[in-house]
């Protein structure tokens, strides 16, 4: 019988605020055996990272352990002296931190940063250490390691930095590696590569891994044992597949049904079809009415409400010499049609040009060439102020960052009122009634009206942003990564809300996202973009079931947990 490598029993962690302790972890227990991978899964605020940091005593700010015990390799390490603690870090327990962008010292060469780890743990010195650094980087899968070691972090891509951090975490051959959301900041395809590599590497070395993640699919795919945390407590733990297939605790059940990567496999396409049918019908009626009434824009009722034709955007970047510049083609000859009352998703990794397309459709950015037609009229031809306002009224955006998309100095009331005021719609009384109605539509109590954005959660702010977008009764809503920054449960709620609103109001969505998993729940047509170009363009079912292009297949494969069969 093997002894556990790490045993956490009834751990309590609190942060001191003034004179009171605010608990962050309340009685968490977990066990890790040598060579095993154990995952802690939870949303933000669940205490998963705090638990991990408590193990190596790297709690931020005023955090401190208030109770329970942490036993590592048969030794209680809950309260250690500074020297003892430093002796354990690196050589016994390694850490791969979350954000590769901020976790390397920007002023120090990557090689030297890994060398520090070797020297601090007495493994190698001087020339020998330099040699070992190159080996470690090679081992972490970094090509051309010898010259890369002499570079600075900013010369690395995100994925390369994460590889360097893995090399650093494993440099002193620890028995346990804590991987704190090691790939959340990376593109899905890079994420998969790195996790695959980490998995083989730790298996070869026999290192146990404590994986911290918000992604249930990812955890189930990579870990033997799963620990689900919620509000500082462990609500369920056990063998990974067993929890996934047969969750017991109401929170685990909810989490599994909300996870897009898992749920999307089960979500009946019938549900989406119902939404679409109702939406297309309503949208058609509205369009007929608008075209009849609105002589400003004119146009005709077509099946495509928005049509992008050969959209191209070239940015001029400052070049090597004054007066010279380098052309950077962010969007390259992109064409698509957004059918009235349906959702077209644009999927791509960072730098694919998907958000630039969104900004051009919104007329916030002028295309270098090509055009965006709205009801058959080129939007760049709308140079009349009145016509422009009429266009704005029919197309509205919801942006990604719920913390930056609302003016922090405006109350919720003023934020939603702003579009009405700008377009001089209604009297004060009518506006208030409209705002109440909008808040009701996005399922927020009208008491929220007098509050400010800083008092609301991310999901609530995103609801407010949706209400503001709907204030002008638009026909098209551009959702630019609108659910990407939200926790899983909240994300699921907002997606449901968006579906409901579409069915009710006949909205057409242009849904920009990096996350292929959520696409199935909301989109009808999909555009896959890479490096500014459209790689594949098809309906959702075709893309998921019969992807034609290699890149699309790679994206689909990279969805964490996508391969797990769930009995339903």
């Amino acid at each position, binding site marked *: *019988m*093997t002894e556990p490598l790490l045993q956490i029993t009834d751990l309590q962690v609190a942060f001191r605020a003034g004179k009171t302790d605010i608990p962050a972890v309340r009685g968490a*227990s*977990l*066990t890790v*055996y040598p060579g095993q991978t154990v995952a802690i899964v939870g949303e933000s605020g669940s205490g998963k990272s705090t638990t991990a940091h408590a193990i190596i005593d790297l709690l931020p*700010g005023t955090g401190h352990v208030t109770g329970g015990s942490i036993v590592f390799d048969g030794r209680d390490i809950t309260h250690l002296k500074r020297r003892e603690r430093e002796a354990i870090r690196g050589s016994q327990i390694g850490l791969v931190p979350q954000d590769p962008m901020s976790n390397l010292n920007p002023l120090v060469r990557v090689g030297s940063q890994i060398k520090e780890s070797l020297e601090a743990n007495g493994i190698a010195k001087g020339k020998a250490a330099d040699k070992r650094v190159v080996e470690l980087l090679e081992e972490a899968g970094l090509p051309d390691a010898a010259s890369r070691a002499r570079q600075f972090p900013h010369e690395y891509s995100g994925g390369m930095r994460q590889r360097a951090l893995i090399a650093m975490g494993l440099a002193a051959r620890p028995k346990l590696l804590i991987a704190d959301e090691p790939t959340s900041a990376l593109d899905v395809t890079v994420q998969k590569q790195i996790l695959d590599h980490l998995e083989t590497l730790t298996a070869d070395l026999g290192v146990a891994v404590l994986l911290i993640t918000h992604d249930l699919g990812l955890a189930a795919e990579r870990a*033997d*044992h799963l620990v689900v945390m*919620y*509000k500082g*407590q*462990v*609500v*369920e733990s*056990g*063998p*990974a*597949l*067993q*929890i996934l297939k047969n969750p017991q605790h*109401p929170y685990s059940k909810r989490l599994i049904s909300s996870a897009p990567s898992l749920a999307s496999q089960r979500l009946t396409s019938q549900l989406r079809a119902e939404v679409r049918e109702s939406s297309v019908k309503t949208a058609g009626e509205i369009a007929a009415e608008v075209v009849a009434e609105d002589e400003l824009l004119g146009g005709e009722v077509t099946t495509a409400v928005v049509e992008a034709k050969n959209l191209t955007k070239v940015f001029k970047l400052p070049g090597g010499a004054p007066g010279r510049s380098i052309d950077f083609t962010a969007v390259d000859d992109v064409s698509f049609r957004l059918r009235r009352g349906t959702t077209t998703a644009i999927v791509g990794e960072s730098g694919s040009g998907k958000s630039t397309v969104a900004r051009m459709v*919104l007329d*916030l950015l002028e295309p270098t060439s090509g055009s965006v037609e709205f009801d058959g009229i080129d939007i760049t031809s709308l140079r009349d102020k009145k016509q422009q*306002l009429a266009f*704005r*009224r029919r*197309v*509205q955006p919801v*942006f*990604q960052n719920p913390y*930056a*998309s*609302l*003016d*922090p*100095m405006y109350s919720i009331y003023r934020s939603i009122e*702003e*579009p009405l005021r700008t*377009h001089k719609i209604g009297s004060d009384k009518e506006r208030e009634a409209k705002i109440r109605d909008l808040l009701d539509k996005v*399922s*927020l*109590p009208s*008491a*929220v009206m007098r*509050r*400010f954005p*800083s*008092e*609301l*959660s991310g*999901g*609530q702010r995103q*609801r407010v*942003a949706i209400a*503001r977008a709907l204030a*002008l009764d638009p026909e098209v809503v551009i959702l630019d990564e609108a659910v990407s920054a939200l926790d899983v*449960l*909240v994300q699921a*709620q907002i997606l449901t809300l968006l579906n409901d609103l579409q069915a009710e109001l006949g909205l057409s969505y242009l849904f920009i996202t990096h996350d292929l998993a959520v696409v199935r729940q909301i989109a009808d047509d999909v555009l896959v973009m890479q490096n500014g170009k459209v790689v594949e363009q098809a309906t959702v079912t075709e893309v998921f079931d019969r992807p034609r292009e290699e890149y699309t297949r790679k994206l689909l494969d990279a969805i964490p947990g996508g391969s797990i069969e769930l009995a339903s």
Partner: protein
Amino acid sequence: MPDMTPLPGQTIYVAPAADTPLEETGTVDTSAPPEGQWKEAWKQLRSNWIFWVSAVLLVFIFIVVLFPGLFTDINPRQAQLSRSLEGPSAGHWFGFDRQGYDVFSRVIYGARASVTVGILTMLFVTFVGLLTGAIAGFYGKWTDTIISRIADVFFAIPLILGAIVLLSSLNNVWSNRGYWGGVLAVVLVLAVFGWPQMTRIARGAVLEIKSLEFIDAARAIGATRRSNLWRHVIPNSLAPVIVTATVSLGVYIVAEATLSFLGIGLPPSVVSWGNDIAAAQSQVRSGSNLHVLFFPAGALAITVLSFMLLGDAVRDALDPKAKKS
């Protein structure tokens, strides 16, 4: 691959639902009153003792500035030569200077000039700097280049050096300018060389705010650039401007005193701390009569300190970085 028989400590565990209740993910606390950014900052400020120390001091200083008569009956310009350089005594707490002026009365009446110069200069600089900085940052391109270059021109001339030159030229054109004329001249001169600093601060703040998503959202609504600037960008850029303004108030008070010390600031007829400190230097040689220097210098230091402390407290309350921790 998962083990079929769980190891000790890894058997299935499910927390009792009663101990781990699920909470709604979208509740709004409707009991507390709503709090905007300014209200929140005020709450933060209120709990900071440094703020209260500086506030009490500043209120006292403002009372002295507005109603010097409340504190002394003695005319600061009435010389009693017989009591020249006499030390502190009952009724004359701060003693007399060489001309036989009562130092306490001079300190009380001197507050007005110093504080007025500080406040007016700060208002002037903030107004010009905020406007130019916001326009440069918001409109960018040529507007930015032109405003930034002009600001550079003024910034390149050192404050005190430029102020001395400009004031001495003003003396030729506008020699007999009396109390308020004297104050105004110093204010104008300090403002001429002080505004570019505020322009830079405001421009930086505007550039940051301009790139946020709510500005794009407002553009997508159809709001004009100008209304965007006034309704969203400027109000959100105010925090660093206010902090800089508060701190720089103290700096301008010191600058005025320095100019007066150099004999080129306020006219000698104006009762001011700077003038009195300058005069005291020659009276304190070899270490005697320190009271003549100590009291006006102390009054000046306390005033400047109060503004700097207020600036620190305001920075802590407004700085989003400080708020997070």
